């Protein structure tokens, strides 16, 4: 709890935490939506925000507010799936490579570097085209996860490498601790803060990719996400027709989400890094 209090002293953490909580509530609200998000024409088109429709309606006859709740929910689901699955891969690869060393390390790092070096964006776009018809939230999350682990695997590996040289490792090995137990019980706590901060970065990246894929017309337009909402608004010329509520809703939500995630990751990593933590304290 003291940790949380310390974190809250940073205005960036406070802001991002609040924003994320609000967005989470918005996402949960989608369970109470009176409208099915894949149905069109359940409301009069192009209405300005009013008490019956908080954020107005769009040109497909849907209530923008309730669409937004689904959009936030789906975007968060995609990013969480992408983030966690890629964490799991990164942890496995990083830990095994860091601990085993030698050939295993070389091979794993080679694979990871290859992922770093490829023009990931292009390959993701190609694959998205391939599976477009079968694209749903989970598939998209998995697709993004498959490409998002490489950088963090390396980071975790260096952490493990430094931990391996420490005294307690020798002690544990000498006292007969099995490898797995050592890794899980001893190393993981050290690596957790790191993992958490990279998780947040990865989530932001996943949402960014999702929006980009939607803009390029490569995702399933029936599923409301921040990206597809924006793409529908653009293809219906919302900007030039003046339907600002339809266009601004996904944009503002996306900006808030990104800024919140970014500030969260920055404030947490600054907190974790002892040098910057001291600087913060000194600066106050």
């Amino acid at each position, binding site marked *: 709890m003291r940790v949380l209090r310390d974190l809250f002293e940073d205005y*960036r953490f406070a802001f991002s935490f609040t924003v994320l909580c609000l967005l989470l509530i918005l996402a949960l609200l989608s369970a109470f939506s009176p409208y099915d998000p894949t149905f069109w024409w359940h409301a009069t088109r192009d209405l300005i925000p009013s008490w019956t429709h908080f954020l107005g309606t769009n040109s497909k006859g849907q209530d923008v507010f309730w669409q937004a709740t689904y959009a936030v929910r789906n975007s968060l689901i995609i990013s969480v799936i992408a983030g966690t699955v890629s964490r799991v891969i990164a942890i496995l690869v990083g830990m095994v490579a860091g601990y085993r060393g030698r050939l295993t390390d*070389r091979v794993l790092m*080679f694979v990871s*570097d*290859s992922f770093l*070096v*490829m*023009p990931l*964006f*292009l*390959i993701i*776009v*190609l*694959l998205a*085209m*391939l599976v477009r*018809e079968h694209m749903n939230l989970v598939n998209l999350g998995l697709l993004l996860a498959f490409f998002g682990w490489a950088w963090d695997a390396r980071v975790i590996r260096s952490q493990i490498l430094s931990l391996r040289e420490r005294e307690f490792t020798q002690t544990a090995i000498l006292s007969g601790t099995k490898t797995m137990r050592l890794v899980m019980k001893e190393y993981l706590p050290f690596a957790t803060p790191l993992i958490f901060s990279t998780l947040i970065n990865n989530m*932001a990246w996943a949402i*960014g990719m999702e*929006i*980009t894929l939607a*803009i*390029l*017309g490569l995702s399933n337009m029936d599923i409301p996400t921040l990206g597809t909402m*924006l793409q529908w608004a*653009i293809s219906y010329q919302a*900007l030039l027709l003046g339907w600002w509520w339809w266009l601004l809703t996904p*944009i503002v939500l*996306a*900006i808030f989400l*990104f*800024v919140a*995630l*970014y*500030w969260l990751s*920055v404030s947490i990593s600054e907190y974790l890094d002892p*040098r*910057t933590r001291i*600087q913060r304290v000194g*600066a106050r």
Partner: protein
Amino acid sequence: MRFVRRYLLPRFIQYVLVIFLGITAVFFIPRFTPSDPVQRTIAELQSHGSYLDPGSIDEMVEDLREMYGLEGSMLEQYGAFWKRVFTGDFGVSFFQFPTPVMDLIRMSLPWTAGLLLWATLLSWIVGNLLGGLAGYYARSRWSRALDTVAMVVRPMPYYIFALSLLILFTYVVRLFPIAGGTDIGRKAAFNWKFIADVLRHAFLPALSMIVLGVATTFQTMKLIVQNVNAEDFVQYAKLGGVKERRIVSRYVIRNAMLPQITNLALALGQILSGALITEIVFSYPGLGSLLFNAIVTGDYNLIMGITALSILAITSAILLIDLVYPLFDPRVRLM
């Protein structure tokens, strides 16, 4: 010798392997799409209601299959493909038949390279300068103000930013042209008119990339400089009375540059893949537009050509950094 074996050789092997794997992946992926380029072409010929006599379509399909090089099994096509690649021939574009892929790339590359080269370099220089100074004077008001601005600008979705710039400066305030690399009817020539024309058309796309690039570089540099600033040798220099200008340039920034050089090289390597959205929003005639068009029309050869070149560029950039880095960072030489 030991240096070569432990440092250079593994990296070189990795370089070759990655290129091979990458190009293989790019060869096979488009071939698994359900859309058949031959039928696409026929559909295009038939679209808008123009009439292809149904009896003659069968023969056409045969002809097209042959001309596109889609005959034979996947492995045969794969083998033939590698044979051609070593001569720099990526085959012929399907959709823009019969133009060779290399010609198309050659035409579009200067636009993308020009735009991204300038944008990357400018944002790198400006970002590092501002970041370095801000990092050194970390407590000053302007430094913190800039940091907050960067904090808000950096995570902004690029597409939205680019689109807003477009509408703002071509419609609301009519300062810049909407589309293209040059004016209509302008022939390429080495005179001031042409250059001014190109600059005018490139301004908005470059601006959109520079603003975001500066925000990112600024933050990274600031952090690095702050860390270096806290190092012992800098404190010692300050206590020792070394002139501030000298500390900033020779002690702090010089050491902070190392990781930034790596980043620059990486960014330059990303040129080929980085321009997709920019070029789509601003209708810029570069590789990004070409690639997007190729993906949408299922033009395997063109996709392969561009992606293969992209892989080549990035891996080469990284190999280059790895080869040159020891010159900058003596610590690596001691390995």
